[in-house]
């Protein structure tokens, strides 16, 4: 009886979570007429790939997709490359008093500010260095967005490692940098993978900054591109849904590939 209840609850939660996705997928496969049938056509409709053909025929979609891919991968890699050494320093070096915690909290507090507050200064700064409407500008912004999270997560993972292992490496003749690259890096890989997934998802879905800071097609990312189907005269539900489905895929693939690390990484951090 208890198991039945448990499974029912799990199924309900899953249905609740997956309903919008199901809606998105069906809309992307329906003709415009079927999309607004009332009562809704849950299963019985003639599927069409017209919307998918439409978005791929439109050059810009490929461009957006590629831009998103470049921006999210580059920004994730840079955030990890900068964040791990920072986290290592906070976890391991001697800090006077409670500075390590103070600095960590200050870093995290940057994430507490609503992003919209910083958007005008960001716009002005990027304009000043001529990075508006460039992928480099968006990468920079996404790095800034993700860095606090990387530092915060990775600090926990580094602190979980036994100090003795690093000390042994130093006595074996390894420099600090060598310890970081050849001892710490391989050992925090599960945590790094989990953090990378988070960063990728944040960067992939980032909409606000991308909307304001990239207004030309050459630097637009997928979320902005999808939103552009809401035009002055109509909302292209079919094309928008098809683009949405395609946009979900990379995150889905990456997350399931990293799932093994993901769960382990999360629980590792939690046990501490």
């Amino acid at each position, binding site marked *: 009886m208890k198991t039945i209840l448990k499974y029912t609850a799990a199924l309900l939660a899953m249905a609740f979570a997956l309903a919008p996705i199901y809606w998105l997928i069906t809309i992307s496969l329906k003709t415009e007429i079927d999309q607004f049938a009332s009562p809704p056509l849950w299963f019985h409709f003639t599927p069409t790939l017209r919307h998918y053909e439409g978005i791929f025929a439109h050059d810009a979609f490929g461009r957006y997709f590629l831009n998103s891919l470049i921006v999210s991968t580059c920004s994730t890699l840079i955030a990890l490359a900068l964040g791990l050494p920072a986290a290592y320093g906070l976890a391991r070096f001697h800090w006077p008093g409670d500075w390590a915690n103070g600095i960590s909290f200050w870093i995290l507090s940057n994430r507490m500010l609503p992003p919209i507050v910083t958007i005008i200064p960001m716009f002005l700064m990027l304009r000043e260095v001529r990075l508006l409407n460039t992928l480099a500008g968006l990468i920079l912004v996404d790095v800034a967005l993700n860095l606090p999270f990387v530092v915060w997560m990775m600090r926990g993972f580094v602190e979980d490692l036994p100090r003795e292992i690093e000390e042994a490496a130093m006595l074996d003749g390894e*420099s600090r940098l060598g310890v970081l690259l050849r001892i710490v890096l391989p050992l925090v890989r599960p945590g790094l993978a989990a953090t990378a997934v988070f960063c990728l998802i944040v960067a992939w879905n980032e909409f606000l900054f991308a909307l304001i800071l990239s207004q030309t097609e050459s630097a637009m990312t997928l979320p902005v591109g999808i939103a552009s189907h809401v035009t002055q005269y109509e909302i292209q539900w079919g094309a928008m849904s098809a683009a949405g489905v395609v946009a979900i895929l990379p995150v889905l693939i990456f997350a399931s590939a990293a799932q093994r690390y993901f769960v382990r990484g999360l629980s590792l951090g939690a046990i501490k």
Partner: protein
Amino acid sequence: MSLRVENVSKRFGTHDALRGVTLETLDGEFVVLLGPSGCGKSTLLRIIAGLEEPDQGAVRLRGRDITALDPSRRDVAMVFQGYALYPHMTVAQNIGYPLRVRRRPASEISSEVEKVAARLGLAHLLRKQPKQLSGGERQRVALARAIIRRPQAFLMDEPLSNLDSRLRIDMRAELKHLQHELGVVTLYVTHDQVEAMTLASRIAILKDGLLQQYATPHEIYHRPANLFVAGFVGSPSMNLLPGQVESGVFRRAGLSVECSAGTNRELTLGIRPEDVEFSLTEQAPGWTAARVWVTEDLGNETLIRLSLDGAFVTLRAPAGTRAEIDSLAWFRIRPEHVHWFDSQTTVAIR
């Protein structure tokens, strides 16, 4: 003189971990740092390794001042209590790591690894991961990693304390033999006095960050410098009975012993359990009566604890000695083996 620690002090917050410790080793010597937990012995080892910085004082290795040098550039090897093997590398990679860091050619590394592994009986484990090994095997890998590059000093921080007691005794003997073969000066931290006595050529006893005595195991046992050393080394430990000396006789409740170590002062009498004679029948003179408090039959000998006016006297009696608890018995302190200590300063009087 191969390793020298000069007037080293270290403070953590308000706690003085080390207070002006000076220590010097001879070439190839096996020095054990012994003391209760929190006495500063591990801190001293970590300062020599370069993992902690001393607040004052200097560390010299073969005349070279290494106080400010990075751990990686000191040419000392360390074995940790938890072994500190690299979990993501195989046994062979672990052992070869110090050579890999030094960018030696791969062929040289693998031949050296094989040599060292054969010497420590690890040849069949080279492809395994550390987590697949038993405690004793991990210990050997840690040792192999330390000896492969022939450092100028070995530092060992309670390396045997995670092993079960039988293995610990085997490894102890092996370690001593290995150290003798290599002839490299070794500093070994432990809180186990038996380990210290069996391994050391000299023992440095620390308490509250102060060096209490630095001498051979024989001298530490037979000529302890103060009450702390006397009570810390030896199992069962030395009997320590505080009392008063008046006109050449040491007196305390129920006991009087001749004493030439001054007069009219408060002294503590120290006597090892093996230097106390025991009898079940009344003897006189020079024998003292006491109640049997407990007996412990160890097979090769019997430990007897007597109760004497609120104090205890422990003694070693021959195997098979029987005495009923609470029965009356007699003991005699061999005067030639008595140690005298000043009760106030705790220092030995010689």
